[in-house]
């Protein structure tokens, strides 16, 4: 298992490398650079000043040199300083990562609890009005774009006169306020996840309940509850876990939007601003972080299969 995880980690690094090369090259095609941004509200500007500032930031060097310098830094754990803020990129990523992680974690947890719970209930009550209602709800929520969900949440809150406290408070400094700020966006994110998981759980449960080993368990006198939860749910978890992984990626996409709507200084906002400012090191780092998150989550999902399914656990050792 450990070697499996390690090997996956190494391969993940390869993938990240490829991604960062792609991003590095592609991003330079966008016209304009940080110096233009810094001087965007200046009056008279001489070309000499522009050239001087560019050189200060190493933007005049060949692309390959810039990339190797950046890459060398990354290997030594130094993501460089932001061209825009001058602060270490690592610090920025760290403080932006917390709310994003919080959002996505909370979103996935709420989504998983709601989704798996309602999926199990729905499968249990197959054909009853409750099942129909749950399925309809999941169909609707699955179709609501996170964008709209976020906006409608905001509209709803405005309608009832509830104000999300401002400004954003980091988790560490003010957990209570932070929760008040995170909970609604997380909820807005989680409903789609819940809907997807609910559907998947339901169909996986139904599929599993038709399996021979369920019949066999019933035949050997296992109580219906145990058949359902012990044998049914555990086996149904495998496709659900896969979906959980893809949903996480989906959720990360969603945070980009939700952070904009709810004004949360997360990774998405950071990336968005960095792109607008042509803050190359920050863009690179943010992209790497997204990639890393995806890879880690996929790895976790893969590892969790092993927890559920001994066959997979075995194949890996």
């Amino acid at each position, binding site marked *: 298992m450990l070697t499996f995880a390690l090997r996956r980690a190494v391969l993940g690094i390869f993938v990240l490398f490829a991604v960062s090369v792609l991003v590095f090259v592609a991003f330079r095609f966008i016209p304009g650079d940080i110096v233009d941004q810094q001087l965007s509200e200046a009056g008279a500007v001489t070309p000499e000043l522009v050239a001087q500032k560019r050189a200060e930031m190493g933007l005049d060097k060949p692309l390959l040199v810039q990339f190797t310098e950046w890459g060398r830094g990354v290997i030594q754990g130094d993501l460089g300083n932001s061209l825009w803020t001058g602060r270490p990129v690592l610090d920025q990523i760290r403080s932006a990562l917390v709310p994003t992680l919080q959002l996505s974690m909370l979103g996935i947890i709420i989504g998983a609890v709601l989704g798996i719970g309602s999926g199990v209930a729905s499968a249990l009550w197959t054909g009853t009005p409750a099942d129909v209602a749950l399925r309809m709800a999941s169909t609707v929520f699955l179709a609501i774009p996170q964008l709209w969900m976020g906006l409608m949440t905001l509209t709803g809150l405005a309608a009832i006169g509830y104000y999300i406290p401002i400004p954003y408070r980091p988790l560490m400094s003010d957990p209570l306020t932070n929760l008040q700020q995170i909970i609604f966006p997380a909820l807005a994110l989680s409903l789609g996840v819940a809907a997807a998981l609910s559907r998947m759980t339901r169909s996986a449960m139904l599929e599993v*309940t*038709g*399996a*021979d*080993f*369920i*019949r*066999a*368990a*019933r*035949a*050997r*006198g*296992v*109580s*219906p509850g*145990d058949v359902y939860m*012990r*044998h049914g749910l*555990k*086996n149904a978890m495998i496709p659900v876990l896969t979906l959980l992984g893809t949903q996480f990626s989906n959720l990360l996409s969603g945070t980009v939007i939700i952070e904009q709507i709810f004004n949360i200084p997360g990774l998405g906002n950071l990336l968005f601003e960095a792109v607008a400012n042509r803050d190359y090191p920050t863009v690179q780092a943010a992209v790497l972080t997204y990639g890393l998150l995806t890879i880690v989550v996929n790895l976790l999902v893969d590892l969790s299969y092993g927890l*559920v*399914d*001994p*066959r997979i656990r*075995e194949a890996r050792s």
Partner: protein
Amino acid sequence: MAAPPVLDVQGLAVTYGTLEVCSDVSFSVGRGRSLALIGESGSGKSVTVLAIAGLLGGGGAIARGSVTLEGAEISRLSPKERRRARLMGRRIGMIFQNPSRALDPVYTIGQQLNEALALTGITAKADCRRKGTEWLRHVGLPDPEEALDRYPHQLSGGQRQRAMIAIALASEPEILIADEPTTALDVTIQAQVLNLIRRLQRELNLALVLVTHDFGVVAAMADDVAVMYAGQVVEVGAVADIIRRPVHPYTRALLSSLPTGKPGGRIEALAGSVPTAVDMPSGCRFHPRCGIAEGKCSVTAPRLEPSTYGRLLRCLNAEELRAHAI
């Protein structure tokens, strides 16, 4: 068959929605006896035994007929009542065709055994282990102690089927139902497993209902045989007797279409194929394929009636045939 039968099935009919996939199945098994249910694919063997075990799923229901277990009618019981009557596992044990699919892949053999042991009141961890090991040893698994902690996929097909048998027997049932328990196995393994089932059945004095489509298995395993065709039992009798003197035209055709193993020579093939529930012929269900069918056969549906030597026959020409056969 002097002793009253443990299991007695009379006129059992099973429907899935409007489809009657099994209509009029009758047979009985006594303690320590083994009965084989044979018939071609789709003839309703599995449905019959699932109905007996109370495992009809997906909209299946017993429409008519009775199933009595030691004199008590069980066919009308709800799942709850079945559990209360301790039918599931405790009195009726079941082995399935495909051991790879009938064992839950995410639990060890031991964990699944424990579920069965719990029915007999054994729940303490140490007791479970001891008893579990005992059962696995009983079915001849090598390293029974260690096998308890194995997952199904870590066993070979034959071993899995043995584990399945151990689990089915661990709750000490009175009746063992085995639905094609060896079809998925190789001949050498099949022989081992069948031998084991037979041995245990004798030792534990179980009533065995064995579903198969292989006359070789019937010959080797069963005391009695019920031949099924298109959802009906068409002939019931002692195995040796039926193999020697099949009476029903279908039984005869079935036996003669078996390859003999003699080189060359055509096989006497039975034309056509088993009808399905949607296009069931009128009258005798076998008449379109029957060599001796007459006009009445397409009109009148024959009933399963006793004949000589304790034989039951479903044929309008039963009398003639019997005379002919003997």
